[in-house]
């Protein structure tokens, strides 16, 4: 090094040592930090508040209409009505999932975060866990309350234990997995509006496109889209048999599909987050 070695530039005899006890930070610290972050911004309260409102109002509204209807439900259970609240709720979950990470990119906060914790994987893991648990808990509780009300209101077949589980825990887990997918897309795209647009498109466009596939040549594509589009998967979650045609997901299978998709995309998000400049 060629810099002049003046006496005043010699290292201080004793390097500074902080009196605050030093301990290695771990994932638990990152979880606490992410919990502080997610509960200290209003967008969390807004999106979750709107989600709860939509699930309750739409769930009870549909149940009330069905209850006043003369037509008998036959062998159907009232739990299937949960779908109508789940679809709008998923838009809120998508928004929150994207914002959890993309807002850090939008504000530049991500640089502060990654300076405080150079382990990028730990940050993303903590975000994913905190977000998943929050959304899973809230949606499961709300879905359970709404399902109880729907079953009580509507005169229909008695649901089995498995149906109850899918309509409550299954709904919560599916929405939380969809949120994880949004979180991963947000990590990859790093832009709130862009990532939310992509996710809303992914949610709705396949069905809309399938609606207009009149050509016979596109029949197979149309069927595939009708079977595997995210709203179709949500309906399938409430049904023991594939609701569209002979094959396709039913029961717990949509949850596996969504969980698998989220895991794959999240793995890509990890790889990109680790290698990219922030």
């Amino acid at each position: 090094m060629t810099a002049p070695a003046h006496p005043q530039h010699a290292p201080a005899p004793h390097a500074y040592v902080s009196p605050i006890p030093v301990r290695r930070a771990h994932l638990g610290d990152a979880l606490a930090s992410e919990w502080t972050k997610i509960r200290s911004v209003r967008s969390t309260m807004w999106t979750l508040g709107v989600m709860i409102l939509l699930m309750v109002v739409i769930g009870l509204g549909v149940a009330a209409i069905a209850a006043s209807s003369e037509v008998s439900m036959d062998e159907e259970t009232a739990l299937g009505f949960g779908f109508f609240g789940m679809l709008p709720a998923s838009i809120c979950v998508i928004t929150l999932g994207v914002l959890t990470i993309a807002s850090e990119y939008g504000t530049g906060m991500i640089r502060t975060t990654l300076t405080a914790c150079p382990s990028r994987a730990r940050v993303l893991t903590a975000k994913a866990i905190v977000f998943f648990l929050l959304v899973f808990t809230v949606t499961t509780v709300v879905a359970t309350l709404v399902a109880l009300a729907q079953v009580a209101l509507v005169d229909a077949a008695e649901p089995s234990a498995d149906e109850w589980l899918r309509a409550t825990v299954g709904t919560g887990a599916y929405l939380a997995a969809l949120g994880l997918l949004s979180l991963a897309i947000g990590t990859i795209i790093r832009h709130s509006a862009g990532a939310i647009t992509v996710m809303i498109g992914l949610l709705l466009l396949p069905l809309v496109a399938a609606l207009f596939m009149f050509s016979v040549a596109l029949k197979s594509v149309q069927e595939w889209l009708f079977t595997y589009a995210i709203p179709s998967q949500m309906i399938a979650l409430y049904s023991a048999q594939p609701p569209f045609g002979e094959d396709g997901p039913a029961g717990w299978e949509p949850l596996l599909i969504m969980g698998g998709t989220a895991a794959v995309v999240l793995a890509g998000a990890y790889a990109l987050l680790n290698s990219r400049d922030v």
Partner: protein
Amino acid sequence: MIEAVGLTKRYGAKTAVYDLSFRVRPGVVTGFLGPNGSGKSTTMRMILGLDQPSAGHVTIGGHPFRQLPNAPRQVGALLDAKAVHGGRSARSHLLSLAQLAGIPAQRVDEVLGVVGLQDVAKRRSKGFSLGMGQRLGIAAALLGDPQVLLFDEPVNGLDPEGILWVRNLMKKLAAEGRTVFVSSHLMSEMALTADHLIVIGRGQLLADMSVKDFISANSADFARVRTPGTEPAQREKLTTVLTEAGGQVLSEPDGALRVTGLPLPRISDLAHDADVRLWELSPHQASLEEAYMRLTQGAVDYRSTDDRLAHLQPPLQPGQPGYGVPQQPSVQDVPQQGWYAPPPPGQNPYATAPQAPGHAPAPAPAPGPYAPQAAPRPSDTPKDAR
């Protein structure tokens, strides 16, 4: 201790930082200077492991940042005061960072007190002024009570009281034995705060030396000599004598002579021997700000449009007024063109760190010392002497 070796960062075709090597030592405030877009922030981000260098490496205490054990307890940084979520209160923001780094929560209230934000701790940082934002950023840097501190433009937007506070804070932190690395584009501020300077331009190292050396190496000292205006012959005579004695003499518009390379007593002696009366013999020093502008003139990326127009105009004939300074047409005797054209690579005496410590080049020793000397505001030159 921060050590960069051959640090290079390319964004596509643009090279933001090229082959930058320097060392930041503990115990002193090291200023990191450069014009806008010269690569200061990019370098800071590479130090913090946020950007991956295209070549070379940078370590803190011997480790790359991302491999540092307990990084937030060893390094604190203010990169961008706006790098906070505006919807979060100051306290929540700092709390989340403290939790992430495993720092006790009471430290949050401590640093809020240190930066003077305790009264607005519960307010959302969206409503903060630029100065309050800077204070919040400084609080985040101090959170881990780290040994190495990086501040990117910490005084931006601060009021005079805040600037003084930051200045004293930096000095205090360095005096405690910490490594303090402060970037700025304000030479005047750095002259007061820093002990050591690292100057870059267009991503390349221009200078790495103590502030004292920087001043003596880059501020052009000269003597102004005035002979009786009624006797032009005396002026001619003195010019010849001074030139023969090894001085460089240039004519100033009002008839005074600008002399470099000769100490004042020697000029006086020579004049006396030549039987020339002097009406003025005064020492002058270009300000540090001008020294810095001269050093970085070739490395400024963002110039105003007026300058660009000047480049587009047909070449001026010798003897015509200099580039785009029509309001001062009479200064042409002191060459002005030097500050537009960057000196060719290798010819800028300040382009590299001095090879021999304490061997700072004497003011204007080389031939043509005025070529890069004239500052953008030539008329201010003498008055700005510090």
